[in-house]
């Protein structure tokens, strides 16, 4: 199977042109294979989560927390769904013609690309200024959590750290999508100077043939990788045990019990917002208002 396609430029030099679209099928296969493998593992694994009794005790101890805890602000949710719509439009317009469903896709593709670019710029500013920027990133400090999560997946009851605001899988996925989407966006913006848009004067000679070839190949590789990543994302969003996270991306909040059951309050401290019905932070009266995460 060829991975790359080549042509010969007017000087008879070999130049890269695209990735082979066989890689699309490879990405689809990889995504679906992961889905099947993970689903099978989840059926037979002894994944351990916090015991109900332990969660009960924490709920009593943290009765000062409101019933609903804000996990995603409205701007964050709007960004997510706008980005999702742009991403699906990009993948549909890119790959349906490849598999034989022909339609005029180019204009829709670059409009979706610019929408994605705009939403990413918004997200960077929003996350930097208004959110806990580092809460989504992974680093050496997460190794104990990685070890604990692996052991829990293997059926061990270990006391290691629970996730902060975002589970480790979330953060690893975010890292992957950042790298791949940025490659797609940067190369896509460059490629826009090769087509007619209201924004750029066409200039196919902006780069050398070799640089253009690498640009197209990188864009293609990012595209097919996104196919696999989106399959994985949709799969996890649809899994029953993850539905509470998906619901939070729709409604914006999680329950106090979900917060205590799945998160480490020390790593994701919730700052209580004053509400008409709220009690004092030290009160033992359950609070029916919303709380926001610490910034």
């Amino acid at each position, binding site marked *: 199977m060829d991975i790359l396609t080549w042509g*010969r430029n*007017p000087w008879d030099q070999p*130049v890269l*042109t695209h990735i082979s679209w066989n890689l699309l099928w490879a990405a689809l296969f990889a995504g679906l294979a992961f889905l099947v493998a993970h689903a099978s593992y989840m059926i037979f694994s002894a994944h351990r989560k916090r015991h109900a009794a332990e969660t009960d005790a924490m709920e009593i101890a943290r009765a000062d927390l409101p019933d609903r805890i804000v996990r995603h602000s409205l701007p964050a949710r709007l960004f997510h769904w706008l980005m999702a719509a742009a991403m699906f439009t990009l993948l549909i317009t890119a790959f349906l013609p490849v598999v034989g469903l022909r*339609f005029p*896709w*180019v204009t829709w593709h670059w409009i979706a690309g610019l929408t994605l670019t705009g939403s990413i710029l918004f997200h960077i500013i929003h996350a930097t200024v208004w959110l806990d920027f580092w809460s989504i990133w992974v680093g050496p400090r997460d190794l104990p959590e990685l070890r604990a999560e692996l052991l829990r997946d293997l059926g061990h009851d270990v006391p290691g750290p629970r996730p902060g605001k975002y589970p480790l899988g979330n953060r690893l996925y975010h890292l992957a999508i950042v790298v791949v989407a940025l490659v797609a966006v940067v190369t896509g913006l460059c490629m826009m100077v090769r087509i*007619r848009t209201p924004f750029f004067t066409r200039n196919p000679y902006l780069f050398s043939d070799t640089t*253009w070839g690498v640009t197209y190949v990188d864009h293609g590789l990012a595209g097919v990788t996104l196919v696999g990543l989106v399959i994985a994302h949709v799969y996890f969003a649809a899994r029953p045990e993850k539905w509470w996270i998906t619901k939070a991306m729709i409604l914006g909040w999680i329950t106090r019990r979900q917060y205590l059951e799945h998160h480490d309050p020390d790593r994701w401290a919730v700052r209580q917002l004053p509400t008409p019905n709220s009690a004092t932070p030290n009160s033992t009266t359950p609070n029916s208002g919303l709380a926001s995460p610490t910034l």
Partner: protein
Amino acid sequence: MAVIRDVMPAFELFQPTSVEAAQAVLDRYGAGAWVLAGGLDSLDWLKDRIRRPQAVVDLGAIAELKGIRERDGGLEIGAMTTLTEVVRHPGVRERYAILLEAAEAAASPQIRNQATIGGNVSQDARCWYYRAGWPCYRAGGNICYADTPDAINREHAILGADRCVAVNPSDTAPALIVLDAQMVIRTAGGGERVVSAEDYFVGPGIDITRMTVLEPGALLTAIRLPRTWAGAQFYFEKIRDRQVWDFALVSVASAMTTSGSTIERIRIAVNGVAARPLRLRAVEAVAEGRPRNEATAVVAANLAVEGAQPLGFNAYKVPLMRNLVKRAIRGVEAAAWTS
């Protein structure tokens, strides 16, 4: 670029005597097969060694693809009927004279003797960057060499460009569109599919590597001319660099019925301005019900070129197309030529 001309690469030659046998060969060789009709387009590709098929399927021995027959009050033209046979057929002359004019204008007598109407409508783009074998969009690459600041693009598209700016070179195509011709296709699975001439051609936005809807393994078997526009008032004009024979810079075809001086119905199509022959629906809508005069022709002609985006060297096509549309509606003598 090193091109070895006039020496074709080796290939297996098949000369089947039925459509089924031809399709069996196409199926066996897949992407390595090449369909040969009259050969006027194919032999350039092969001699330039830009295309190197494993197998060439010559349709010349398939009798069912040849000849012109009466059908439902109209005509059915076999795809392998030569342009000369089209030009000489009395039924074409009496009822569909615009097709006669278009076929006659397509090429010199020698070429018309060899060229087929199926090949004429299915021929590939003549953009020399593409024909030189460079890795342009149409060839599966990622660039249009004709749409660059210093490209030689005098013959290229002013409308409907989507990355590729090549134009459709067929002369009979706009005539068939205004006649509401139906293209009969034998699909790779052996089924029959009939599409209108207008829908037979595809632009680069839909499929940048093909000029028609013909999928690999499919064959155009016949072209049916319904009686809808038989005997209408026709107009065909082709502007080319050399009058003896050349591809169209711009061509126009129209069919019209009138009541007194009012245009009752009109179909109008142009070629040489886009990657597919364009039916000018907006022009038709404006012209129908209006008097056939200079004022109507001017309005329609200006509408026809709306949205045109000339390249570096083909801005002349805008007034050329505008004037041809005007003449198609008003007539040669009455329509004043404007720049």
